[in-house]
């Protein structure tokens, strides 16, 4: 399989704190890859470095064969790499439709109407609420909006940061179904999760992070069965 994202030996610091230590990983075309680990392990920091919001002091990030680690975040988005940030971060004072239009900011405006329909097909709930201000949506609806917004840029790689955070179990299942559904439609997915059980059950491969390092890697099944992982992340 063709590698579309290659992260090589990155080191990220917050002031004096060394948050990411020599992390390297790859995502191949068509995969769902997950980064799991406890709070503070460096999962979100890794995603934010790939999307350009943070900078690595060393190493490189290569997307579709080209280095992107020196590009500003808005240039990276136009290379077809989208991120759904932690906590959804939808624009609460803007309408659902305006949020989606922002997602299509890098796209020619002629295709926006068609893409809106594509997102409304994925998330029919959003269509009912298209004129509503995003701040009035429930947590699950906001997560759908955040994902739909990212889909508006037709990403080749979609990075999701804790999509299950703060959602009721039923909604979590629904969100993971959508993730699998998107993947079947050909979107490659890099998923960051604290809910390791759910993440590994949909992922082809996973990397386990602990205090800024990758401590182990394997296929989703291998990791679910691994006794260490069971003990540390899956509750025995």
């Amino acid at each position, binding site marked *: 399989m063709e590698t579309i994202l290659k992260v090589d030996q990155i080191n990220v610091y917050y002031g004096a704190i060394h948050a990411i230590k020599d992390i390297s990983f790859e995502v191949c075309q068509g995969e769902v890859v997950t980064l799991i680990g406890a709070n503070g392990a460096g999962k979100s920091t890794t995603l934010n470095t790939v999307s350009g919001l943070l900078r690595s002091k060393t190493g490189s990030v290569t997307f579709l064969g080209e280095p992107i680690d020196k590009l500003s975040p*808005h240039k990276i988005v136009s290379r077809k790499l989208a991120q759904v940030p932690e906590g959804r*971060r939808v*624009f609460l*004072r*803007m309408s659902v439709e305006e949020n989606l*239009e922002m997602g299509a900011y890098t796209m020619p405006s002629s295709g926006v109407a068609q893409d809106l329909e594509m997102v409304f097909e994925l998330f029919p709930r959003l269509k009912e609420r298209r004129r509503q201000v995003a701040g009035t949506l429930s947590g699950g609806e906001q997560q759908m909006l955040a994902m739909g917004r990212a889909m508006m840029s037709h990403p080749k790689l979609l990075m999701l940061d804790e999509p299950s955070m703060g959602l009721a179990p039923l909604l979590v299942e629904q969100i993971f179904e959508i993730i699998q559904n998107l993947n079947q439609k050909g979107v490659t997915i890099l998923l960051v999760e604290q809910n390791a059980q759910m993440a590994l059950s949909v992922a082809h491969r996973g990397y386990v992070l602990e205090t800024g390092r990758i401590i182990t890697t394997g296929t989703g099944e291998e990791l679910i069965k691994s006794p260490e992982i069971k003990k540390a992340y899956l509750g025995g």
Partner: protein
Amino acid sequence: MSIVINQLVNGLQSGSIYALVALGYSMVYGIILLLNFAHGDIIMVGAYAAWMCMVNFQCHPIVSMIIAIVTSMVLGVVIEKVAYTPLRSAPRLSLLITAIGISFLLENGFQLIFGAGAKTVPSMITGSDIVLGGVHLSFPAVVTIVVSLIAMGVLTFLVQKTRLGKAMRAVSEDMGAAQLMGISLNKTISFTFAMGSALAGIASVLYLCSYPQATPTMGSMLGLKAFVAAVLGGIGSIPGAMIGGFLIGIVEALVSAVGLTVWRDGVVFAILIVVLLVKPTGILGKPVQEKV
């Protein structure tokens, strides 16, 4: 009765100028959390530009007005690029101090170049009084109010309906998420400064219609009152800035009307104190949410 209406029109006239200036404060604060205290001085530079065009180059009044507005707009963008962009990730206090420094630089720079004396700007907008139902309304007052309302309408359209306007709202709500949409911060922030400063340029031209003098410090009191208007309306809020501006103008006119002209400035700043004590978020401001 006609005295009351006249005072009200006076209030609306100065109020619309405050509102135009307050919009610049509010938009810039909304997007980079900076109280841009150099904003008032942009009005002053616009006024000098108009004076130079009219007196030195004998330009047509309309050409002079356009040059004054464009000069203000360009100056606002240049200040942002030179002074504020390098400090984008610095503490907000450094940015505030820089803004005050720019204000001093402009005021003293212009004093050095043009002297402290007032320059009289020939009137650019002339016309006879308009009589409406027995009430005489001065032509500049009517023009000021009408032009301001049009400018505010255009601004509202730009911010609500256009791509860049929406991007501006997105950046002001969440800079990080906006970047993840592919929105360029530099472009959007420049656009915000350009619009805010163009409005200050329009305010400058309208101000000259009634008070045809340019001095190096003319922008400071005007800017401070517009700042009060922005806080009263809710800093960061565009409709708030408009409401705040008109309210401050009307209050000033009423204070003068009852014969307390010397107290005019005092009352405006008393409003600032009361707002900060009673409702710091202003009329339309939203409470700042702590991000968890």
